[in-house]
């Protein structure tokens, strides 16, 4: 039986954040029906993709909007459908719906990821978050009471004067893991409109990278090392579920717009709540299959994803998996970026200094 990660998408929010263009519903009345359909998808998909589940991740959206009853239903479905040998079960929590934190362990949840984003009250408001900095810290503190693994999400690049150093210093005592994302501005997001109307002034690319350097340095000094582009952890507290994405391990995604990678093929559910609720999803074989998915695609993805991590590409594993000679196949590309990578017989990784321009390095390797 194949090992796999299980991702459950909960696309419901109290209010959509301004920087988000991901699918989410603010109609909480649908939640009961949604949880039923999720349970049904889990059951059906387990027949199609029988797997031993090693990690579970409830992401969103705002999974902390789920009631204990909902969680009960979902976890019952998981356990009755799959063989579960969980190494890590994570739920994403918003500070303003964090009241059930202490109840989560009984479902087997052993890791929480809390959406702090920033501790600047003005910026928090501007990006449309409903919690205050104090509520953020409070959620982290309470999470620490119930969990050994607490992760905090931060967004950098929100403003040229954003004080990333003080944010990291403030949250570090209460967490074991930090995810720091650079603000991206999706075309259709509220924030794109705000920028256009001069109501919001994000940091420039260069300023954002300056903040990224501050984030990296501050984290390192506090004992969080960067094991992936956006992820920092105390040793041994790295996220396993997300790590499996970058390692191209199989995973099964549940919910509208969720993606699966199983048996070497990528599937995804349509981004359509109505259709989803009427049973259109991977459980019923009505999901989409990524077209023209070839070995070359898989190779590209492997390189692209593994170079996000500090460890980089495991050349031996690559060669074995694709029956190829990585260093020979990409000799010219690697030559062109020699200054920006470290390369040995076994491993190629992007030097920490050049993490923020990794796309260029990856492109050079792939296109020479």
């Amino acid at each position, binding site marked *: 039986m194949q090992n796999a990660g299980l991702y459950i998408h909960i696309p419901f929010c109290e209010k959509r954040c301004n920087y988000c263009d991901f699918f989410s519903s603010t109609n909480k009345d649908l939640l009961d029906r949604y949880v039923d359909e999720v349970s049904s998808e889990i059951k059906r998909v387990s027949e199609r993709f029988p797997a031993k589940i090693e990690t579970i991740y409830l992401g969103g959206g705002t999974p902390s909007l789920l009631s204990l009853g909902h969680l009960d239903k979902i976890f019952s479905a998981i356990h009755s459908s799959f063989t579960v040998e969980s190494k890590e079960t994570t739920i994403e929590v918003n500070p303003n719906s964090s009241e059930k934190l202490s109840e989560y362990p009984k479902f087997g949840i052993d890791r929480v990821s809390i959406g702090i984003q920033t501790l600047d009250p003005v910026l928090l408001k501007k990006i449309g978050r409903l919690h205050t900095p104090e509520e953020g810290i409070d959620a982290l503190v309470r999470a620490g009471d119930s969990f050994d693994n607490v992760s905090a999400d931060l967004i950098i690049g929100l403003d040229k004067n954003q004080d990333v150093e003080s944010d990291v210093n403030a949250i570090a005592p209460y967490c074991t893991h930090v995810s720091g994302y650079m603000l991206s501005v999706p075309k259709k997001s509220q924030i794109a409109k705000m920028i256009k109307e001069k109501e919001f002034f994000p940091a420039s690319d*260069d300023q954002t990278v300056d903040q990224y350097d501050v984030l990296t340095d501050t984290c390192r000094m506090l004992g969080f090392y960067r094991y992936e582009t956006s992820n920092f952890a105390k040793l041994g507290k790295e996220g396993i579920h997300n790590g499996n994405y970058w390692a191209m391990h199989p995973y099964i995604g549940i919910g509208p717009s969720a993606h*699966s990678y199983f048996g070497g093929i990528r599937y995804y559910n349509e981004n359509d709540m109505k259709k989803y609720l009427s049973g259109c999803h991977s459980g019923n074989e009505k999901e989409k299959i990524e077209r023209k998915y070839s070995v070359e695609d898989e190779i590209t993805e492997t390189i692209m994803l593994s170079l996000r991590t500090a460890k980089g590409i495991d050349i031996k594993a690559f060669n074995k998996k694709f029956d190829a000679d990585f260093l020979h196949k990409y000799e010219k590309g690697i030559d062109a970026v020699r200054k920006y990578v470290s390369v040995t017989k076994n491993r190629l990784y992007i030097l920490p200094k050049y993490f923020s321009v990794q796309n260029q390095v990856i492109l050079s390797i792939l296109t020479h």
Partner: protein
Amino acid sequence: MTDRQKKIRNFCIVAHIDHGKSTLADRIMEKTGQVSERDMKEQLLDSMDIERERGITIKLTPVRMFYKHKGEEYTFNLIDTPGHVDFTYEVSRSLAACEGAILIVDATQGVEAQTLTNVYLALDNNLEILPVINKIDLPSAQPEKVIAEIEDVIGIDAHSAPLISAKDGTNIEQVLDMIVETLPCPSGDEDAPLKALIFDSVYDNYKGAVCNIRIKDGKVSAGDRIRFMSNGKEFDVTEVGVFSPNMQPVDILRAGDVGYLCASIKNVKDTSVGDTITKTDDPAKEPLHGYKKVQPMVFAGIFPADGSKYNDLRDALEKLNLNDAALIFEPENSIALGFGFRCGFLGLLHMEIIEERLEREFDLDLITTAPSVSYIVTKTDGTQIEIDNPSKLPQATEIERIEEPIVRAHIYTPPEYVGAIMELCQEKRGVYINLTYLDKSRVQIEYRMPLSEIVYDFFDNLKSKTRGYASLDYELDGYNPDDLVKLDILLNGDVCDALSVIVHREQAYARGRMIAEKLKDVIPRQLFEIPIQAAIGNKVIARETVKALRKDVLAKCYGGDITRKKKLLEKQKEGKKRMRQVGNVAIPSEAFMTILKFDGK
């Protein structure tokens, strides 16, 4: 003169661009029933898409029509002419095929640069001029003023000029009647040795090169053996015919006729415009005068944006060349742009047309280098070479002297812009020749100036400084030596050959600075800092820097959805394919174009 000849009128229409030449031609064809209205596309004579879109004529298309006047049937041969300075020679040859010319003047614009150029060409060819005032339907029409202007400026009687609107068809019959009454019929001796003037040639996939001809003397039929008098080549005539407006074979063409001739000629280059065709068994003693070999004036490198399309580009150029003998090209290898072609054109418009046809008809993406002129370089060892590619210029130490082509430019403008125009001409190294008030509202300014300045940005500058009111015409007027230097552009220390230009030493600093600044804007930031330098020889005269790229990373892969990231990567990969590598610097194709563009500064 035979009775047959008395019933023929061979004429053309001359006008400044946009004054309504093609529209009048369409109306004339319509009124003579040559084309049913249903079949008519606007501007029927202009058969190329580009011509129709731009409202300009590039290829000459003759058409034969019949018109009844006072009970007699007359044959009209209308020969359309290109309306642009690039094609002056072609215009002069098509005029030579006619006895008369309809001169259209826009009732709202008056006499313009090309009006005069074309009228003078017509007068040079002893054509009878029939002036016509067009666009009288427009509220701003001032026919009386324009008639006076024609009489003052051109010196021809315009009092009986028909006042027409080609657009809505007003007074077109009057034009047709006056063609019969005022334009002369062709003379020429049917029994003399054959003299046929080639005023155009086109390539036909089945018939080979087709010569559009005017029979000046003698007659020609299928089966005759003919000789081209400029190159001595001989062929057997396979078909003669007329244009109605499509090719329609006839038994014989005789003195005074306009038609076409095919002789299984494989190469359109053998059928030079202006050449005389005669028969081998009874050849004419002298060719018709006025033949000259057309020389390209403007040169540029054309490269496929996608290097692997080199063969496609070659095939496309060869195909265009079948129909356009004025286009010349030879393979060129650039360090920056790879394999492409050095092409020679009659002028800037010709160049634009070729580029556009390559892109449109052959679906090619192109990179074109800055247009250059052809310089005569005298080396220190006394030898002379012609250089039309700046990157081929010898080392400064080997050069004794560089001479550049000079033109005589005629600019027509309302008087209020005289100051601005003279300033511009001085700036462009022009030497003042003359200034004439044509009337109260129009001035003609004459300058001698380097062709390279015209090729660079003179025309755009002129238009912007005079709000489009000034018009320009020019003809080649010899070569002049000047203090010319090669300006190189270095990217990260490497010369980018495709960006080199030859400029006057005094302009080099400003040009170098401008190119460096523009390049700084179009070259994307890369992993390392890129110095951009403009240099004359080893001396750097301008420098800009493209700072190293710092952010190019996708922060998050939500829920295992890596498609976004992959899409971005694919997009970047595509973009990179369109980049050119100079040393280790990637340059987008647009960079080569943007630096050529006039920015109004």
